[in-house]
């Protein structure tokens, strides 16, 4: 669906003759250039996995994280322009904090997702500003409502999901996610599968080194969003690497 919108693509306040807002579509392309992030909802929680490309060996490990904490019970994984994403994370944090201040309890995830989506949408209405160049996935767990997963894209729409992927390998990641029976899995099982999917969709040729970011929120963390503990992460990465080797081996056998 790629086309040039000559003349109708200079500002977000202009429709093209075929009813498109090109600035928003270009913003979505910016997300597609970024490395992949996935979020999957299972029986008792939500797991996020991000393929964080390392552009230089001089980078400090763990810097420029792409998974954020929004309040204790909500996590956010992003793809696209990282600076835009950071500013939206602040917006989400303020929304969650104000809600708690006004109403005395944790913000329901659907409401947070609606509020941030409305904010993102506002930037698609005016020529004085540009749309946000990032998509993000929000996840939370609550003992009454269970696990929840929502994704917001630069157009300002929010969708609820069982599993979703954003970034350059989102199609490949979606295919892998669809193979999972996530509704029957626990977080501990899912963590390994998420690591595996990130390793699968990572392109060794085009992008060299990457760092895997894993986080979860669920019954296993008592409803708090946290980065996956080191030992669980190592086990998940080992499982991912071993699964890939197995697939490589089996490919050779078929020859």
């Amino acid at each position, binding site marked *: 669906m790629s086309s040039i919108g000559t003349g109708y693509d200079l500002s977000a306040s202009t429709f093209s003759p075929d009813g498109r807002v090109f600035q928003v579509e270009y913003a979505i392309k910016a997300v597609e250039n970024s490395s992949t992030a996935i979020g999957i909802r299972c029986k008792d929680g939500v797991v996020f996995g991000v393929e964080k490309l390392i552009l230089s060996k001089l980078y400090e490990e763990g810097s420029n994280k792409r998974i954020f904490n929004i309040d204790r019970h909500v996590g956010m994984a992003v793809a696209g322009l990282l600076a835009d994403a950071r500013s939206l994370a602040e917006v989400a944090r303020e929304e969650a904090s104000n809600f708690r201040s*006004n*109403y*005395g309890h944790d913000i329901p995830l*659907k409401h947070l997702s609606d509020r941030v989506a409305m904010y993102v949408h506002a930037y698609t209405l005016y020529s004085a500003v540009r749309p946000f160049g990032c998509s993000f996935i929000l996840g939370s767990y609550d003992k*009454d409502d269970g696990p929840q997963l929502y994704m917001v894209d630069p157009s300002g729409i929010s969708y609820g999901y069982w599993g979703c992927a954003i970034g350059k390998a989102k199609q490949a990641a979606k295919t892998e996610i669809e193979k999972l029976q996530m509704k029957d899995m626990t977080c501990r099982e899912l963590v390994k599968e998420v690591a595996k999917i990130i390793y699968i969709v990572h392109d060794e040729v085009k992008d060299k080194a990457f760092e895997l970011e894993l986080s979860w929120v669920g019954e296993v963390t008592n409803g708090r969003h946290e980065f996956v503990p080191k030992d669980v992460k190592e086990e998940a990465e080992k499982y991912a690497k071993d699964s890939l080797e197995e697939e490589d081996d089996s490919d050779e056998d078929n020859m």
Partner: protein
Amino acid sequence: MLGEAEPQWISEEVKTGTTIIAIEFNGGVVLGSDSRVSAGDSVVNRVMNKLSPLHDKIYCALSGSAADAQTIAEMVNYQLDVHSLEIDEDPQVRSAATLVKNISYKYKEELSAHLIVAGWDRRDGGQVFATLGGLLTRQPFAIGGSGSSYVYGFVDAEYRRGMTKEECQKFVVNTLALAMNRDGSSGGVAYIVTIDEHSTDEKVILGNDLPTFFDQ
């Protein structure tokens, strides 16, 4: 004429002198209030319902300045309407209580009202919150208003955990009757509201149907 004082009801602030009470049982709450509104020594309304709805299953009991209490209740009723539309579900009792508390605390120097918030929601069942002075605390039961001073002993002695809905209703009626007997600023009829998962039930008990004690 020189030296002639005007009637109190012209100059005195209208207060809901009041006795109010709310108590939680397994599956709901019972709220109760008297019906006297006084301006100094004059009773300006003898049948006022001080149990005000904030939402379908959340009520508050008003005490202190009638105007302040009613205004807070109306504001929170509006805010909860908007809030429940935004989150697309029934609001939590805690949310209602927090909204009341936020107003009571922010304007505590200007306002003179104490609201007890009680109701039922699907997460935590029946809940009672006290918001006196701008604090927020959940309690098994709460009493308030000028008449409450006379019944602290009674409620402390008679309250037991695990009372049924009917026992709670009797507890509320007895407490109100005792307070209305002794407090000059409380009297009239007793209003009782019972809220549970299935229904919200409002009842009036007329003066001569209230329980009587040794002196009657």
